[in-house]
């Protein structure tokens, strides 16, 4: 006993000692470090610039922290910055985006989850064909469909309105979301569905009482996808809406690119950070929820 504890070469016993600097660890942490720098450095520059006033910005030390911290650029970006047409800042675009985002996310996820559920459990004649057409839809470039959609929206009388844009977002979200939900529900054991049918639950009963409660993780994934996708959308916003209901991204572009006067880099940085805030918050909030959802989901029953 005593000799074993004294001698440095211990007989193998208990947990195997791990080397801190194994090649695998060096690779993993090295890569993580480089990637973090790559993403965090620009963010750092943006935050710093947005907190300086213009005289300090003109001095050009983009990496140095502000000598005097000012929130002026943020206030200006939110409430006073001028686009070509008006001068009430990003706030208008923010509320437009919110009004586009909420109905688009809710409607697209509601429809796609039900159709994914129907496609995996209630197969009907031609359901495979329907699904394949939907998937092909995911691969058609948006640009090809822009003009036809303009015509369709005009005929429906919703061209240039928020309703029209919500419809477009819902439809374009459908292929990928349906695929997502169908694949998730396909992993739910079929016997669960059979048991619910024997128990007398119908199409909606099974969806609401059995499937919904066990699909929190996939809903979180769908919400992340849709919120970031729709919030960051520029093309549809610019094509299908009018200036006074432009989403935030379009308005950001107009502020940054407006040619009157001097370029206010600090305001532009603040405006960009404000626009990026929503997806960022979604990642932080839902990331936690996501992990918890998976852990609590424990689909096996």
């Amino acid at each position: 006993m005593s000799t074993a504890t004294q001698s440095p070469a211990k007989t193998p016993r208990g947990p195997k000692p791990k080397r801190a600097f194994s090649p695998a660890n060096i690779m993993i942490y090295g890569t993580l470090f480089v990637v973090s720098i790559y993403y965090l450095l620009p963010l750092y520059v943006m935050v710093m610039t947005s907190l300086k006033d213009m005289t300090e910005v003109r001095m050009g030390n983009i990496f140095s922290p502000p000598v005097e911290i000012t929130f002026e650029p943020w206030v200006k970006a939110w409430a006073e910055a001028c686009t070509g047409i008006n001068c009430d800042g990003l706030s208008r675009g923010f509320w437009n985006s919110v009004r586009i985002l909420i109905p688009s996310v809710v409607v697209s996820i509601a429809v796609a989850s039900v159709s994914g559920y129907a496609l995996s459990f209630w197969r009907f004649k031609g359901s495979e064909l329907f699904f394949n057409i939907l998937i092909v839809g995911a691969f058609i470039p948006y640009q090809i469909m822009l003009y036809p959609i303009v015509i369709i929206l005009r005929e429906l009388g919703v061209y240039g309105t928020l309703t029209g844009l919500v419809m477009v977002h819902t439809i374009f979200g459908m292929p990928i979301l349906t695929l997502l939900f169908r694949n998730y529900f396909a992993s739910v054991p079929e016997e669960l569905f059979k048991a619910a049918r024997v128990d007398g639950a119908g199409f909606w009963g099974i969806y609401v009482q059995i499937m919904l409660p066990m699909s929190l993780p996939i809903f979180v994934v769908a919400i992340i996808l849709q919120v970031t996708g729709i919030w960051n959308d520029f093309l549809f916003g610019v094509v299908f809406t009018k200036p006074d209901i432009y989403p935030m991204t379009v308005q950001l572009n107009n502020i940054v690119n407006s040619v009157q006067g001097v370029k206010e880099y600090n305001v532009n940085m603040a405006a960009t950070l404000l626009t990026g805030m929503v997806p960022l918050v979604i990642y932080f909030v839902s990331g936690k929820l996501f992990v918890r959802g998976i852990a609590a989901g424990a689909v096996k029953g």
Partner: protein
Amino acid sequence: MDQIVNPSISIKNLDLSFGAVEVLKNLNLDIADGEFVVLLGSSGCGKSTLLNCIAGLLDVSDGEIHISGKNVTWEEPSQRGIGMVFQSYALYPQMTVEGNLTFGLRNARVPKDEIAARVEKAAKILQIEPLLKRKPAALSGGQRQRVAIGRALVRDVDVFLFDEPLSNLDAKLRADLRVEIKQLHQQLGNTMIYVTHDQIEAMTLADRIAIMLNGNVLQFASPYEIYNHPANKYVATFIGSPTMNFIEGSVHGGKFDSALGTHSLDGYDFTTPSPDGPAWLGIRPEHMATGDEAANKPIQLEGRVEFVEPLGSDTLTRVTVGDQHMWVRMDGQAQVKIGEMIPIGFSATQAHLFDTTTEERL
């Protein structure tokens, strides 16, 4: 077979195909009220498919299904008066045990106090009262399967359908639950249909066993009948472990000719009037006598010991007789050495004869 007057379940000319694949072909089955029927067959023979048809989870291609005298071919599963228990338990993961038990009753809008009474009764029978507030993830396999049985129990149905309910459990638990299911059947007196590919479950539980192959029922009879009078060579091979030994030869005027000699078939109960022709003679390993006993048997052979598997209670020995391999079940105390010649004897009353071409019993 005697006609059942008021069958609990009656399946008439049932066909089922998945596209071009015919899984069930013109299947007929009458099950008496309160009977425990086991569907037994190798994997892929259509047992689960048949059970799903009875439950109404699959639309039949042709034929009728009657339950308790009512034609339910077009009825929804919940309207058929059946409860079903699945191999994977299929408990609703986000509901408590109580929620699982009451789900069907809530869907059927059964009054609250009635639900409570039925849950209490079922929980008592299955001894799951302390588990009612738990989620399925917090239960062991055996407890989950009890809850799954409870879910069928509370629905107060005439017919229980089990699809391999015990095959996810370990051997000990399987044996315990097997006994419990049998007791449950005696207590409730419901009709039960039970799918398995475990012979022991089939033999111990069933009033009658339906042996299936390729979507057909080959024989539907009591375990005794299936073991002692298998209707064809497949059934004979399927039941019994190790499987029955077969000798190829021919029947000729009450005698069996084969490479091992000519033996009298005195005492064999022929089912056909003209059995003569090429045939297989089958004999189960446990019906082969060895040692001194062999000398008293009418048919005697001699075999060389190739291989010995001592199981404690008895010893399985593989021998070569002529150029044929045979398994013999010997007493556990028997001492045999590899290469040794041992006498083997059996009597025609315990043998089985099957036509070589049709494989039907002679």
